[in-house]
């Protein structure tokens, strides 16, 4: 029985083992897209502004579907400009084998154990299914960084969920269980139509006011409601002042900024501040410096105004 993704498991920051996963609040449209992709068995292509949460989506879905066992069922393949399709599936250590054959080492006979290094995609296909029936999750991050042909080289793997290892006599390996594939792209290059056809597509819009407030509230502990409102308004103004060609600060920048403001709120009245903290607060205080470019100045003005009222 397929458990749908609801987006409710990561409303608060959660701990897994020794690390934390930050809260992730998807929009309703995004939740629908994820569930549709799961149901239909097709990859989900996610695009959006940089910093809007494309990469974190896969992790959030993995957490909700697999909980503590997340690390066994979540696979992440980061694409670089030099990545070839084969790299994600396996790498064959030809030189190592050549060397071993030359020195007469017996282990050269067993190719699979010693000379095949499986990549994230192969690992995702080989992983057994979680008992609760949830699919394994594979994230292919920033697919547009690679060559134009790269997505086309993956068509067989994405559609049939299988891959071929040439060096093992063309051994065909089929995915042992369901795999939900997330693909993110930054719109730097156009993706080939044959690839696009097979994917479902969703564009993550910048969140609306209510959603922004909700997102931000998960990351702060000390700021009052009034301050949050003021800061959000400031952020909106900044975004609207920048035009299309500038990089607008996005959701992740907003979260970073709020964490900074939160820290400042917590620390400003505390005695016995360390030197570093004092310096940091002094920097945040540095408002009327004409050398500052306008963007940070607006930020600092907010804080200074707040300080003055206290």
């Amino acid at each position, binding site marked *: 029985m*397929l458990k*749908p993704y609801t987006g409710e498991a990561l409303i608060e920051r959660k701990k897994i083992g020794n690390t934390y996963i930050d809260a992730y609040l998807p929009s*309703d*449209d995004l939740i*629908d*897209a994820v*569930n*549709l992709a799961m*149901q*239909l*068995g*097709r990859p989900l*292509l996610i*695009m959006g502004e940089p910093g809007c949460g494309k990469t974190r989506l896969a992790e959030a879905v993995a957490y909700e579907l697999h909980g503590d066992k997340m690390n066994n069922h979540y696979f992440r393949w980061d694409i670089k400009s030099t990545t070839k399709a084969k790299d994600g599936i396996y790498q*064959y250590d*030809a*030189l190592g084998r*050549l060397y071993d054959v030359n020195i007469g080492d017996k282990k050269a006979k067993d190719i699979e154990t010693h000379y095949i290094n499986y990549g994230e995609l192969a690992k995702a296909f080989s992983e057994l299914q979680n008992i609760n029936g949830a699919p394994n999750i594979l994230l292919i991050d920033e697919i547009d960084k690679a*060559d*134009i*042909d790269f997505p086309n080289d993956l068509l067989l793997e994405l559609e049939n*969920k299988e891959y071929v290892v040439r060096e093992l006599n063309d051994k065909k390996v089929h995915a042992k269980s*369901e795999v939900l594939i997330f693909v993110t*792209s930054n*719109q730097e*290059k*156009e*993706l080939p*139509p044959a690839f*696009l*056809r097979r994917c*479902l*597509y*969703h*564009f993550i819009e910048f969140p609306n006011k209510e959603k922004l407030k909700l997102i931000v509230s998960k990351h702060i502990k000390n700021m009052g409601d009034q301050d949050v409102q003021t800061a959000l308004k400031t952020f909106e103004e900044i975004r609207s002042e920048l035009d299309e060609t500038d990089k607008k600060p996005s959701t992740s920048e907003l979260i970073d900024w709020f964490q900074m403001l939160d820290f400042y709120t917590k620390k400003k009245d505390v005695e016995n501040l360390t030197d570093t903290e004092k310096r940091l607060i002094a920097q945040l205080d540095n408002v009327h410096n004409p050398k500052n470019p306008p963007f940070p100045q607006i930020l600092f003005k907010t804080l200074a105004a707040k300080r003055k009222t206290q």
Partner: protein
Amino acid sequence: MTNIPDIHLPLYGFFGALRKNGFSLGIAEYYVFLETLSLGYAIDRQTGQLDKPATLKLCKILWLKPNQSKFVFEQLFEEYYAPLENISLVTRSISKKNTGEHTSQEHSTIAPKAQVTTNEFDNQNISSNTSKDDQTDEEPTEIPQASDDFPLVKFILGDAIGESVKMNDAPTDKVQKFFFSDYYFDLTKRQMQQVCRFLPVKQASRNTEEINISASVEQFAKNGLLAQPIFKSRERITNQVLLLIDYGGSMLAFDTLVDTFMEALQDTFKTRRGEAHRHICPYYFYNVPGEYCYTNKSFTSYQKSQNIIQNLHSKHTSVIIVSDAGAARGGNSDGRFRATLRFVLQLKKATSRIVWLNPMPNHRWKNTTAQRIGRFVKMYGLDTQDNLQKAINILRGK
């Protein structure tokens, strides 16, 4: 006839319209849509009707791809959805054999409730449930999830396909909306690309430092000694194409055709990194290329033709002039001929690989300026793949 909505294959008309307007979708994508409908998405539980916002969302996820016009998509959806308003999609007579095949094909990897339950939607249930009006108002735009108690919606696929072809008509709306589309030109982009494929001259450059491991290993295995490792060669495209495009006036009708041609050229010259602009240089002019040529269609930014010609590397640059040369209106003007000839002769001093593409077919050039110009430059129509092939062959030096 146009008033019959296509219940059996819902929104098939919309799907066809999308394809005509350049959305590259295959029939598999339509089957996926039917599959999601039969799982219960976007269908109102009480009435069996399509929920409009949910359907639009579903179609967008399935069919709208990045960099495609959302506006066109939504417009077409509005038109083709109209006949489906208030029509129940659920039918009683279900051909189990057909749907059995359908479900086992599409659901090979996922095992949903569809294969287990054999509920048939009972129309009598609807009337008793209409009192639950508030339920339908709840979250109207959410795509409902398929669940245990949701009755199955099945479609008659086998015999309906023949019928739906008839029903694939334009919507009944009074207002006609128009889109520019390259669907009706003689030469499709694909055909152009097939011909232009051989235009870029690729050269393997030896300046890479990456070792091609598998090739080196193979060489070692063959020769028994490791003499020199084999380096990875990267291909570079060495030639350029100068495009001189007549824009405006009689050429406006061919604007889409010329744009398609330019796109086809750019696609064939795209390098690994996706940079085509280094190799294709388009310039625009009005009727005759004169002292200045413009770098954009609005003629606001220009360069001196002399400079453009001087910058040609004669070995590596081909020149393509795209213009009707007066053939569109059938005019025969001395002034135009002389001015064009002057320009062409200047070009010829720099390179011999010049070709003139005329969007009008050959038989329309008689007694026009085009015919006269055609005696000095190799002129071909942009109307058949054959003609384009001949033009490209000239540019390749054959």
